[in-house]
Each structure stands twice: as C-alpha cells, then as structure tokens.
C-alpha cells in the first residue's frame, strides 16, 4: 500500500494519506507522470491537501533562509553563549595551545 518507490500502477483517485505522501516526495524527486496526475487530481478536489502542500512549502522556504536570519540578528536579540560557557571554552582553548 504505502509504496515509496516509483508508482506505476495504483488508482488515479487516491486518499489524503497517499496524496500527502506524494506532495512530500515531490519535494525530493521528480514524480512520474502517473504520480503527478494522481497528486494533482487530488489537490484539485481536496482543499485540505492543497493547504497542507502550501504550508509545508512555507516551512521549507523559511528554513532555507535560516542562515540569513543568523547573519542578520542583532546581538541584542540573539540567543548567545552564556558568559560561563564562554569562559570555560576560553580556558580549554588556552590549555590546548
């Protein structure tokens, strides 16, 4: 039932569970023509899965830009290494030199 390899058979009308799986796979590899049709037919009919797809797309978009967020966070708003940890690491570094 839950076949993660390429799907060559299987119904074109599918459940939300299978559709969500295809949505996720589509973020990782190119879907076969059949898989792609199955996914789009479902998304066309099902608002829930269309919403799911857009939400996990937003999640991906935000995460891929996390490095940029790190670079642009002003020190006053950042979560910083606390002073004790800094001191400890400095001591370890000095000892190791």
């Amino acid at each position, binding site marked *: 039932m839950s076949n993660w390899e390429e799907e060559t058979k299987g119904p074109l009308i599918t459940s939300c569970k299978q559709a969500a799986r295809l949505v*996720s796979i589509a973020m990782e590899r190119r879907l076969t023509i059949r898989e792609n049709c199955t996914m789009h037919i479902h998304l066309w009919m099902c608002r829930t899965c269309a919403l799911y797809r857009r*939400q996990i797309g937003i999640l991906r978009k935000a995460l891929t830009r996390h490095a940029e967020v790190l670079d642009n966070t002003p020190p006053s708003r950042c*979560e910083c*290494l606390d002073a004790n940890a800094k001191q400890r690491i400095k001591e370890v570094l000095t000892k190791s030199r």
Partner: protein
Amino acid sequence: MSVDRGNDIKQGPVSDPSGWVDKHGDYLYRYALMRVRNREAAENLVQETFLAALTARQSFTGRSTERTWMVGILKHKMIDTYRKSFREKSISEIQTDEEQTVDSFYDAAGNPGKYPKDWLPDPEKLLHSKEFWEILKDCMSRLPQRTAAAFSMRELDDLDTAQICKELSISPTNLWVILHRARLQLRECLERNWFEKKEDNV
C-alpha cells in the same frame, strides 16, 4: 552557503585563537542550537569546533573567511553526531517507526484525523519573528532525534538526497519516509503552538 557578515572579512591566516570565542562564539552557538536538542549539546559542539580549528589552523588557506571555515568544521562535527543517532537503531526499525507515525495522522480510509487550519502567513514575516524560530526549534526538538537529524540536513543545510543517504547509510526511500514524517509532525506542532495563538497577527 551563508554569506559572512561578521567583522572578519579579510583574508589570510587565522586570527589569534584567544579572540575566537568573542568573535565567533555566539554565531557558532546559534548555528548549533538550531540543529541539536539542547544548550549543553550546542555548547559542547562549539567547544569541539574551536579545538578542531586550533589543531587544523595551519591548513586554513584563507580562501574563505575564518568564520565560514569554522562553520564548515562545525558541520562535520554535526554530521558525526547525526551518524551516531542513526547507528543506535536498525534501519528496518526506523522505517517501521516512521510508517507508524505517519499512519497515526490518518484514519483507516486515509483521511486526516485532524484537518489543518487555514494559516498561510507571509514567509518574509516569519523570518523576522523571533518567536516563530523559538517555537520551530522547540517543535524540532520534539521530533525523534534521527528524524530531526535527517530533516536538518535536508532543510537547514540543503544537502541533497544522495549526500544525506551516503552520510547516514540509508536508502532514498528511508529518507523520504523520514522527511514526510517530520513535515507532518512539524506542521501540526507549529499549528498548535503558534498559528492557533497568533491568528490575528499573521
């Protein structure tokens, strides 16, 4: 690869190691904190990174900035941690766990147990919300360690399937199940902890 906007943009040999903690400590710490489960683990990773950098400082070519070079070392350390979390359980066990979790989101007919709420925020706004990142980090730390590891490599470090599978010795199919589970769980956790409370603000 992130663009280095730190104050260390000149090229050449490494700077004096006694200044490293003040220069790069906070950045490396935040970088690690998004990818590991707690403060102690992140602090340890930062320390290990500095120690490795100290040993390898002769090999620093100055082709990248000092910070980028250190982030590279930290990434290698992270992958070692990820590998360890994968070795603790067999792949077939992982696969079964993941499939069961995916199943728990649906009834026998494959319909979702809970329907998603209609939140579609502007991704730009999310990026600038400190609270969003805190909740996301919290949600990620609730994922099983292996799921979080694979998900971080894919979505935060932008590694492709082939690279991740090679590092973790798993098949693409294994990885896709793991990622699917991570997305289902994170979406649900974000909805519960952030969007339901923030409906007016996004």
